[in-house]
């Protein structure tokens, strides 16, 4: 699903100025960097952190929606939600694999998620109490994710960019199925419409926050932009998302919970765009730092999955070893 504006990476490098300048020239020529290429330690650290956060977000992102699979209102909705959640698991895998090309193991990344050392997108620390949340998540959360991920398809690091191409191909169904749920509810009974409005009220601001802190407060942004890991700033992407989403909300006949939202014809170099109200960054940082409603639940669920799966991993590995040994002794006997 989703990558959030990167939180807290160390982009400092120990290499010589000549090495860094040479590397920057490659980036400026739009050359892709591949796994065994020489690269500044800061570039590697930033990518490991970002791809790791992104992978964890895909995996943890399965939980809020998994919550509704058994209770989907129709078979059509159930197979769609099941397919979407399965896709998110796949996205996690592509991303862990991309990070592994940089010399971290998936096990190490999993441990960092479970210990709380690694972050994931704070959006998944909000609860999903109603079916309308499945609509709002697909529409807004996957919508914001797509906005973020499309430019990542041109990221300077080859394996990350290639993983993103696959991910983006799969994401568009996610957003469409969510919007379809919203249409059904918004054009349904008064109670259903109210449910859709309530979900929009709860998910709007957290979705806007998914793009990360304002550019003026985002410490790693400049270096990430120079290295072409990032192509647009947090605020640019946020503006694009809002401008694309408001007409969709209008079509639904729902109201975005922002009294300061207003069309501004001067914005975007005269093309026009929406002005919007102040974002509650205290809420954002509270959730990032573990104070969201679901932070504890999410990590507890991941920890349980990891622990409960241990005997399966161990048994599968033991079986494989036994088979290999058997084959080896059979070959010996035949000689």
């Amino acid at each position, binding site marked *: 699903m989703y990558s959030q504006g990167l939180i807290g990476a160390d982009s400092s490098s120990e290499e010589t100025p000549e090495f860094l300048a040479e590397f920057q020239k490659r980036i400026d020529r739009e050359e892709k960097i591949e796994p*065994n290429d*020489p690269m500044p330690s800061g570039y590697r650290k930033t990518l490991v952190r970002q791809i790791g956060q992104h992978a964890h977000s895909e995996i943890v992102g399965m939980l809020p929606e998994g919550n509704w699979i058994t209770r989907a209102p129709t078979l059509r909705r159930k197979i769609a939600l099941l397919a979407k959640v*399965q*896709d998110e698991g*796949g996205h996690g*895998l592509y991303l862990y694999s991309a990070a592994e090309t940089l010399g971290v193991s998936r096990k190490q990344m999993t441990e960092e998620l479970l210990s709380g050392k690694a972050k994931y997108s704070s959006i998944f620390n909000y609860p999903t109490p109603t079916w309308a949340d499945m609509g709002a998540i697909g529409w807004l959360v996957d919508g914001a994710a797509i906005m973020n991920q499309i430019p990542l398809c041109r990221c300077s690091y080859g394996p990350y960019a290639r993983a993103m191409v*696959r991910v983006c191909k*799969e994401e568009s169904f996610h957003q469409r199925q969510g919007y379809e749920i919203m249409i059904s509810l918004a054009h349904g009974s008064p109670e259903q419409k109210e449910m859709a409005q309530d979900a929009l009220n709860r998910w709007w601001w957290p979705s806007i926050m998914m793009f990360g802190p304002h550019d003026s407060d985002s410490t790693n942004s400049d270096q990430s932009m120079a290295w072409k890991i990032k192509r647009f700033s947090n605020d640019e992407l946020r503006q694009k998302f809002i401008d694309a989403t408001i007409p969709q909300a209008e079509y639904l006949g729902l109201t975005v919970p922002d009294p300061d939202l207003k069309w501004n014809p001067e914005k975007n170099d005269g093309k026009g765009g929406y002005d919007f109200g102040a974002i509650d960054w205290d809420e954002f940082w509270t959730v990032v730092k573990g104070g969201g409603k679901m932070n504890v639940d999410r990590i507890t669920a991941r920890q349980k999955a990891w622990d409960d799966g241990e005997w399966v991993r161990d048994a599968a590995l033991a079986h494989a070893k036994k088979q290999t040994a058997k084959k080896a002794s059979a070959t010996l006997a035949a000689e």
Partner: protein
Amino acid sequence: MSDQNEIPLWEVFIRPRNGLSHRHCGSLHAVDATMALNAARDVYTRRGEGQSIWIVPSADITASDPQEKDANFEPSESKIYRHPTFYEVPEEVGHM
């Protein structure tokens, strides 16, 4: 026990349809080839991406050193006599 024994990494190659080569499309972890094939099918061919899968243990791949790139691949640039445009054939002979 899983501490000392990491589940190995495999590279996945998919042939989109007959007539094309298998192409690298990603990686995954699996304990053996059977599990790797099953997982590759589940993860990498959910939308008609392929008709045939190869899987290879990542550890069995030997790669050239990117630092030796110039020494390895420069000759293809300087040996222009390996290319058809190096040779002159009069126009009246026609396309060759």
